[in-house]
């Protein structure tokens, strides 16, 4: 058994005065303070980062983190596109289960805003297939292909989809670390410019800087003394073809369904037991797919499920989605996102989510997607033990 005992996130946003490793340093220092550990109590580090090599010619980050920590422990950089953070957490959890360590720090960090948008868009496209890149497809373009197919099949509209961003901006307005704290309306979403039709600027997560860290441990003494702890019931990974065109479905991410099914089986948690979830809303259509593919609602009904207020703080008493503001409002520093999602669930289950706290939350789920669905990590956490 291993549990999360600490979490810290930097501000997300356009942080021009901070480098990638300034952010990493802040996250490491913050999480150690949160769980009252010293650097020398960390047995290993798993570091999720996607873009430093592509954007900054900056690799071998593990050794840089060793320099920050003043340590010689094993440090592993993990890259799975936008699921890099979730995958780092998954590997850290399994490293502990395998008996290789007792206490592990999981860091996710990304620096994206030093570069023009087209450079970042091109760098993100490195996680798409060669054929997708040759066709000029961006990730917004890939999710737009999914959205248009989905709209046609289920008679869903751009207006239906807009409610996802409206909800996530409302939640972001309650999160002091969010990149966007402004409340938006459906009309504002619909009037925003197209990025890749039918997806618009306000259907899309932003380019962001940020870093987050959690500490997980199986050490009995640390667990007994921990001020805050949340048990990791399951962390499961599933994959699919890199190219959207080579998948069995265009209206779902099958890797989500597979990872979620495995996570529910292993955790012995029923879907109705989940009080709070952070799902991967890189684009509004992605949250709709996630809700359906995990099993929170039926295929084709996800947008109306969100629009009806069933997953909005203050409107739903039993289940809320993306209290952090999601990727849309909290921001999407890609390597950090998966760690932030897990950290947000940790805050909810330890009663420390402040204005966005879901009352009596006891079981939560985090869902992190790499690319257009080639990698998915689903994590289930509980405070019951």
């Amino acid at each position, binding site marked *: 058994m291993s549990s999360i005992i600490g979490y810290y996130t930097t501000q997300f946003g356009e942080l021009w005065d901070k480098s990638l490793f300034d952010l990493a340093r802040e996250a490491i220092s913050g999480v150690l303070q949160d769980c009252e550990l010293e650097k020398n109590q960390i047995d290993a580090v798993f570091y999720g980062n996607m873009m430093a090599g592509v954007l900054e010619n900056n690799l071998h980050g593990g050794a840089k983190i060793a320099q920050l920590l003043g340590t010689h422990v094993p440090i592993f950089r993990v890259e799975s596109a936008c699921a890099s953070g979730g995958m780092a957490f998954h590997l850290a959890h399994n490293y502990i289960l395998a008996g290789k360590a007792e206490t592990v720090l999981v860091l996710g960090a990304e620096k994206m805003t030093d570069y023009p948008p*087209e450079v970042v868009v091109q760098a993100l496209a490195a996680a798409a297939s060669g054929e997708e890149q040759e*066709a*000029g497809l961006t990730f917004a*373009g890939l999710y737009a292909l999914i959205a*248009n197919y989905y709209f*046609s099949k289920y008679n869903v509209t751009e207006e239906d989809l807009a409610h996802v961003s409206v909800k996530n901006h409302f939640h972001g307005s309650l999160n002091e670390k969010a990149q966007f704290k402004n409340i938006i309306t459906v009309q504002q979403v619909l009037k925003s410019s*197209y990025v*890749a039709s039918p*997806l618009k600027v306000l259907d899309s997560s932003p380019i962001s800087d940020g870093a987050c860290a959690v500490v997980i441990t199986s050490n009995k003494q640390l667990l007994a003394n921990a001020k805050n702890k949340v048990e990791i019931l399951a962390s499961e990974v599933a994959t699919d073809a890199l190219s959207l065109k080579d998948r069995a479905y265009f209206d779902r991410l099958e890797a989500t369904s597979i990872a979620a099914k495995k996570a529910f089986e292993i955790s012995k948690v029923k879907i109705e037991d989940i009080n709070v979830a952070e799902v991967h809303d890189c684009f509004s259509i992605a949250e709709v797919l996630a809700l359906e593919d995990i099993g929170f609602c039926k295929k084709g009904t996800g947008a109306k499920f969100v629009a009806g207020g069933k997953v909005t703080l203050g409107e739903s008493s039993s289940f809320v989605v993306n209290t952090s503001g999601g990727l849309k409002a909290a921001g999407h520093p890609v390597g950090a996102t998966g760690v932030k999602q897990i950290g947000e669930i940790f805050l909810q289950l330890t009663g420390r989510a402040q204005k966005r706290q879901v009352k009596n939350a006891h079981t939560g789920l985090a869902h992190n997607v790499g690319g257009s669905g080639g990698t998915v990590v689903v994590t289930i956490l509980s405070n019951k033990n």
Partner: protein
Amino acid sequence: MISPVKVWRRQKYIREHLGRVGTIVSWTNISVAGSYTKEFAPYPVVLVSFKKGDNMYGQLVDFKKSDLVIGKKVISILRKVRKPTDDSVIAYGIKFKPTS
């Protein structure tokens, strides 16, 4: 940077897929593009399904606005897909145009 060798290697695949007729199953119009294709934006990209059961992507060219719909028949053709590399190698690839 795209290596000229990579462009050359890709040509062997491309020639096997020219002249194929398929159906648009989804499409998008890209307004915010990456640095390789920024100067061509906005441009439409279609996801095309073939009777054999396989699918391909490509930009739609030589089309009317009314052609950019799910269900439209298109044929794969050879077109330039990127601006020339620093080595002056011109990359060709697959695009689609309507059959009628």
